[in-house]
């Protein structure tokens, strides 16, 4: 067993883990943060995307021990005080999901996209940037609309953006 200490959604966490424990397993099974999903488990689908030190990563392809001393944000860490993050609200408003399985990863990828590329995202940029996130229901159309609207909303509501 190896001891890991990290910050998850603002809370300090310390645990003894088998080194082969994946970050996504640690989040879901140790911390019971089951909003982060396991889809393909082969770094293709993006259902497991979380932020590691402020960058989107596929948590199925990171060991929990590699995240030692890091800051992790999951989908559960986005909403503040019971109010949805602007990107979450945009996905609801624009019906950016059907079954919802890919949604946590889509939203974490979308927030990362805005952090890197700014809030004025054209359709081509959004589609290219989402290539690491697969959706099997929607055909992406409403997801792209939701990301564009959520990006704008993040700028109009900088307090909540800073809280992320």
């Amino acid at each position, binding site marked *: 067993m190896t001891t890991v200490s990290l910050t998850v959604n603002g809370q300090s966490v310390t645990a003894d883990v088998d080194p082969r424990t994946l970050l996504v397993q640690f989040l879901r099974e140790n911390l019971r943060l089951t909003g982060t999903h396991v889809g393909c488990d082969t770094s293709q689908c993006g259902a497991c*995307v979380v932020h590691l030190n402020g960058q*989107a990563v596929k948590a199925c392809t990171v*060991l929990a*021990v*590699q995240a030692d001393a890091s800051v992790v944000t999951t989908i559960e860490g986005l909403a503040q005080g019971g109010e949805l993050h602007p990107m979450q609200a945009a996905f609801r408003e624009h019906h950016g999901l059907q079954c919802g399985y890919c949604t946590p990863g889509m939203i974490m990828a979308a927030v990362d996209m805005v952090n890197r590329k700014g809030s004025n995202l054209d359709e081509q940029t959004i589609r290219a940037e989402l290539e690491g*996130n697969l959706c099997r229901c929607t055909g992406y159309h409403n997801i792209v609309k939701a990301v564009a609207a959520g990006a704008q909303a993040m700028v109009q509501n900088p307090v909540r953006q800073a809280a992320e």
Partner: protein
Amino acid sequence: MYAFEYHRPTSIGQAATLATEVEDVKFLAGGHTLLPTMKMRLAAPASLIDLSQIAELHGIERSAESITIGAMTKHAEVVNSSEIRESIPALAEMAELIGDPHVRHRGTIGGSVANNDPSADYPAACLALNATIITNKREIAADDFFQGIFTTALEEGEIITRVSFPIPSRAAYAKFRHPASRYALVGVFVAERGNDVRLAVTGAGADGVFRVPEMEQSLSRHFAPDALEGIIIPPEGMNGDIHADAAYRAHLVGIMARRAVQAAASRG
């Protein structure tokens, strides 16, 4: 995946010593090939040595003649480096075609080069740009480093520390991406430095990355797409699989070579 012991040294010296002391070691860089391989039980090392906390393996340095990139530098750092964008834009553009944004936040140049996947992008860049692979023991020219699929000149326990790229006068990379895996079905990197032209192909060769001397000689006389007219790449020695047969890949080499030369030539 099977259980393993995990080590996280903070210096190259510590990592090298550990590698001689513990059994059946693999070095862990970004983990985006090694961890999936271990999940599929195609690899089951007894020990992993995580190189992420070794400060000497990070960072990008520019001199008048070259760009030197620390082995643990992530693809996204290469994409966003203003030094690389200014001196070897083709290298930053190539890094932006690897995987997806999340993969580029983890995958490293050292890991990609050490793995030498026959469809990876960095081996083509290293070979075309005449890079030097620097390890904790020696310096190895790219021409000597890549020795066939998943095979390199690295010895047991040898650690890539940096990769140094001479700055070309112009260069470009043209990639035909597999739409699902995002690896290169065929990728061609071309670089001109003075009168020297080097052209390297990834994704196509049954034996991994390779140069095309006939194209290089013709391009060194006249650096334009029409210099490649009449040069036929035979399907013998090409990789064939369910995605593309050998003849298709051979044909694509010519197409991607012309596109790469066109892109490099348009840099003026």
